[in-house]
């Protein structure tokens, strides 16, 4: 029984972090980056197993360099094209490392769609730190994060540095998602970010209630998906992906 409680707890923690990050992702219009950066977990984990680093070092190293690279390339190339190229780079390097280390097929499915039911006890402390730190960090930086997204010029006039905020945001996103993805899969994290975040951004006019609502919605979506997955034995990612679309559609219809 305790094993089941751990899964609910772990998915709940990931949902809190994803909900908070997702709201900021939507107001900063960084949906594509939010899809691409979590993929850093793929080469990170694969490189760690190939070269024998500790797993956390591989994950953190690749996630942070991915965020830095994205922030830099965004300055020179078109933003979506730069993100697409980074995504391809991360996935191709990950595929190479996995292929060379000899275990390929199962890892690909796990990375994308998650292996929630294979969760170990040792994952909980890491997820706990993410689930608590990400919302707190984003809450503390809520004002500059919103301002630099809505009006970089205004922020520059006030003496702020929009580029620094972009790097900070991408780094938090990459680290949070990078550690959650090996446990829950990229699809689950992404759906939990974008559906609740987009719904909250449409429903709430000001940032603080928006952040809270996104976290609540993400938690509800994650646990509903997990419950349905238990009942049907279908993948969690299916329920969260379709559920996120349903939430978004409902809010779109309601707000017009």
């Amino acid at each position: 029984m305790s094993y089941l409680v751990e899964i609910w707890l772990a998915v709940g923690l990931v949902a809190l972090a994803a909900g908070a990050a997702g709201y900021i992702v939507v107001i900063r219009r960084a949906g594509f980056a939010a899809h691409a950066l979590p993929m850093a977990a793929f080469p990170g984990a694969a490189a760690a197993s190939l070269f024998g680093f500790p797993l956390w070092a591989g994950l953190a190293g690749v996630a942070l360099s991915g965020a830095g690279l994205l922030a830099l390339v965004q300055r020179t190339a078109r933003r979506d094209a730069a993100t697409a190229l980074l995504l391809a780079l991360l996935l191709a390097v990950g595929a190479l490392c996995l292929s060379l280390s000899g275990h390929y097929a199962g890892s690909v499915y796990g990375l994308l769609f998650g292996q929630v039911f294979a969760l170990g006890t040792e994952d909980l402390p890491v997820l706990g730190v993410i689930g608590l730190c990400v919302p707190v960090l984003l809450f503390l930086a809520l004002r500059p994060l919103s301002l630099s997204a809505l009006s970089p010029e205004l922020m520059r006039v006030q003496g702020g540095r929009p580029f620094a905020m972009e790097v900070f945001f991408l780094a938090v996103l990459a680290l949070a998602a990078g550690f959650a993805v090996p446990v829950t899969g990229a699809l689950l994290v992404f759906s939990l970010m974008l559906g609740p975040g987009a719904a909250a951004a449409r429903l709430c006019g000001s940032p603080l209630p928006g952040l809270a609502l996104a976290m609540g919605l993400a938690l509800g979506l994650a646990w509903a998906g997990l419950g349905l997955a238990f009942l049907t034995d279908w993948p969690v990612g299916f329920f969260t992906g379709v559920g996120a679309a349903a939430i978004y559609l409902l809010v779109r219809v309601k707000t017009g």
Partner: protein
Amino acid sequence: MLEFLQSGPVQSALLLSAAAALLCGALGLFTVLRGQAFAGHALADVSSAGGAGSLLFGISPLLGFLLFGVAGVAGLEILQPRRAAGRDEAAGILLGAGLGGTALLLHFCVTTHGAAGTAQAVMFGAMFSTPSDTALWSCLLAGGCLAVLALIARPLLLASLDEELARVAGVRLRALGLVFLLLLALGVTLAAMTVGAILATALLIGPAAAGLRLARGPLAAALLSMALGLAACWGGIVLAYESYGWIPGRTWPVSFFIVALLLLFYAAAGLRRRA
């Protein structure tokens, strides 16, 4: 080298990847100019559900990928708001739902057929196991799409660069955008069958981004982008074929070589422009 060219799987892979590279090279130019890279990526991910479905129901992969690619266009058309602001999130939501469907279909594949490698085949491509008639159909499809693209290229370019001016000139923006999305779905479908659903974006954006860095006019950029895509694909296939002996017992994925060559071209184009 002769042995390489006479191998059936290699011939199919060369044909299929040429079709994908030429079509995506041309489409990619407009995709970058219109800022629709994420939409293209979402369409590729949605089409992967069709790839998984075709494995489950035993139909042709081309048909499966295509059906879901076109369904993805319908989804984008419904979800995407007119203003640019919400486009990103709509594409993302569609992508999530599509990948959710892929997850479910792959789950059924594994539970009913016990086929463990299916996720890898759909997500990272299986061009060496493409039947030769599928490769031929893909070439025909790519040729048809390129012809349509050539017909709408001028108004599409105008609409991509200056929407206001295009409206004044009497271009029907909505219809044109829809035709382009349909072509994009067909293009990324072919790319998904070549390098895999999640790497299809590389074949769409990589050559075009490099082409735009180097060429001066739109036609030159399109031709250069098509050539770079083709060079990366065929180069990748040759390298993958050669790589069997590099480390005993380990294979190098062909998708890795193709993406690596594309990124190399992009980086080299940046250096060349700066010089």
